């Protein structure tokens, strides 16, 4: 087959025009994509209801900046938060798949750290972890874990199709209609906060093979409600707050208490702050 120079240039221009045109279409569509129905829990409701069921003003994501406070001195490791999260967000029942989980950190007399999380702590914890002698325990405490909603998130920058993104109010979401299931964000997350939904299991969008993670229960927060895990915590070890509100208790606590974030050396700038951590948490 022979091809003339004119024909070659015409074909090349046609391909370029197609690419540019598709980009323009993608930019014009909401949420930056073609065929994008943003994940079920990611769509702010313009006329939403608050926790009491009453209506509230339309949600403005630019008027908020969400943060989370975990008080490890209060957590009793009951697992209610894990159960509530699984129910609320259709998280698979199998133990390895969690949006939130609880770890028990045991520091022994010799300084060694033993971390346990049987089934993500959903059914609570045994009095003493397997393999640890009670007399050797010098310190023990629970550490609730969830997505850190990093301000400098590795997961958003590595996604090859921009399926994971940060909302204006600081929450990182996954467009499950766009996710290709490559798992790059799963291995990029320093906190192990992501998983790929197994087949035959439920997920917020009912799509297996895509990534799922904690969203601070965005569908609830944008309707004036608190996240499910915060709602059910019997000891208020978990709190969500708005950093744009100077009087918010969480904002005050982050400013005035000595809170820490996990793995600060990575520069991810988490929005989840911890109170009372006694050892470095991986």
């Amino acid at each position, binding site marked *: 087959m022979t091809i003339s120079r004119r024909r070659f240039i015409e074909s090349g221009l046609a391909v370029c025009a197609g690419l540019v045109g598709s980009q323009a279409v993608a930019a014009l569509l909401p949420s930056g994509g*073609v065929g994008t129905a943003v994940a079920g829990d990611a769509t702010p409701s313009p006329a939403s209801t608050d926790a009491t069921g009453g209506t509230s003003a339309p949600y403005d994501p630019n008027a908020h900046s969400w943060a989370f406070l975990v008080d490890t001195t209060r957590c009793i490791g009951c697992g209610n938060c894990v159960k509530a999260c699984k129910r609320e967000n259709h998280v698979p029942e199998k133990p390895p798949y969690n949006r939130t989980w609880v770890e028990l950190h045991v520091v022994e007399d010799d300084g060694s750290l033993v971390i346990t999380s049987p089934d993500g702590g959903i059914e609570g914890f045994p009095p003493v972890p397997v393999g640890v002698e009670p007399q050797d325990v010098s310190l023990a405490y629970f550490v609730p874990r969830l997505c850190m909603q990093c301000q400098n998130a590795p997961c958003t920058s590595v996604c090859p199709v921009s399926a994971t993104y940060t909302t204006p109010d600081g929450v990182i979401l996954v467009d499950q209609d766009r996710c290709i299931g490559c798992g790059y964000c799963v291995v990029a997350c320093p906190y192990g906060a992501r998983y790929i939904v197994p087949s035959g299991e439920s997920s917020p969008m009912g799509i297996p093979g895509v990534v799922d993670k904690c969203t601070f229960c965005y569908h609830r927060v944008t309707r004036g409600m608190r996240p499910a895990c915060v709602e059910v915590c019997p000891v208020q070890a978990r709190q969500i707050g708005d950093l744009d509100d100077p009087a918010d208790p969480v904002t005050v606590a982050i400013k005035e208490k000595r809170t820490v974030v996990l793995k600060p050396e990575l520069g991810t700038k988490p929005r989840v702050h911890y109170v009372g951590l006694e050892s470095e948490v991986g």
Partner: protein
Amino acid sequence: MAVTVAGRTVTADPRLAWRAVRIEVASQPRALKAWFAFLTLLLAIGAVGALLSLPPGDEVFGTKPSFEWGLLISAYVFFAITTSGLCLASSLGTVFGIDRFRPLEKRHALLALFSLVTAFGVIALDLHYPVRLAFGAVLSPSPMSPMWWMGVLYFGYLALLVVEVTSMFTRRERIHNVSCLLASFMAILAPSTLGAVFGVLASRPYWHGSFTPPSLLMAALLAGISLLGIVFCVVVRFRLAGWERSQSLAVPGLRVLLTIALFTAFLVTGWQVLTTLYGGVPGLSDSMDAVLVGPLAPTFWIGKVLIGLAIPLVLVALPRFYSVGPLFVASVLTFVGVFFDRTIFVNAGQVVSSTAASGVVSMPFNTYTPSLVEIAIVIGAFGFFAMAYTLAERFLDMSEHTGDHLPILSRWGRHDPHGHAAAGPYAHGTAATEH
């Protein structure tokens, strides 16, 4: 109805085609029949694995949230770097004026093409929604993502390889020369970007760092040289097209290149281990513990060091083994060793826990066992690769490519169509080797 492919007329009538296949099979030597039967078996195993993996989800794979990248990613990386290695190996010869492989370049161009197609096939089965990738990469590109760049570069590389191979067999010299030159650049860019996919992940100390992309280039070179060694030894053994040139020029040249590459890989591995042990960086030294004395130790010491480096180095470096047989064995072992090396690389980056969420007790290391489906897909991938090349060797005209190259490529050591060394500073030495 009939179509003409590479100068051969092929019927499109099913009955005639079946008859042609039967005649072809009947005309094959027994050893070739056995080889085809073996490859068909591998393909069948792979096809079963591929079908089982089609529904999206992780159940049929051994991967889990704490160990998301498994055997298929290792296989993808292996085939992807092999593609580049083939091009690099031949380019290296050109750069240093040892233009021994160029007249035989049909083989390494075809091998590179088949290897890249195999890599894409494996990664498509690992991705849960590969079609979305094709659209998403164009409609919502993410230039911040090394994986996006890797996809763009390898796709471009695939296109160039198709042009290169097609123009080579249809004797379109000008197009061939340009595509050859561009493919050489892409052969360096693509694997180093693949290295960056791992290298940018600060959360994985074993992968993180500027050392990762060049180390992938090193592995690519080793894979490419060893695969050329396998193929040219087979060409000489079975006296296939161009075997005289293979025996007199390509095989000795490959021995030198393989020796240098193996020795360099030995040094790189040694320094990588030593610097990691001295540093004691959390996460990094834990991963190296897993490699040296932990769950990855058998693969490292036996698969990589012994099979992949030490034995091949002895076989190619000692003068008493200077013959085609030992070079073939050394090439096979090196090729296998690179595959082990890639599995170690992918696994070591994930072997250290970032959370205890999936575990009962904080284990010293994450564990991962590939499922039968993953193993079947990889077996099928090797079967496809070997089958494609065997068919090409059997049915395509693999005689020497005789075209001239762009001045930049043929500055040193151009060869004439008959295999005699021509102009260039190494021409005298090459001719001496040949005769």
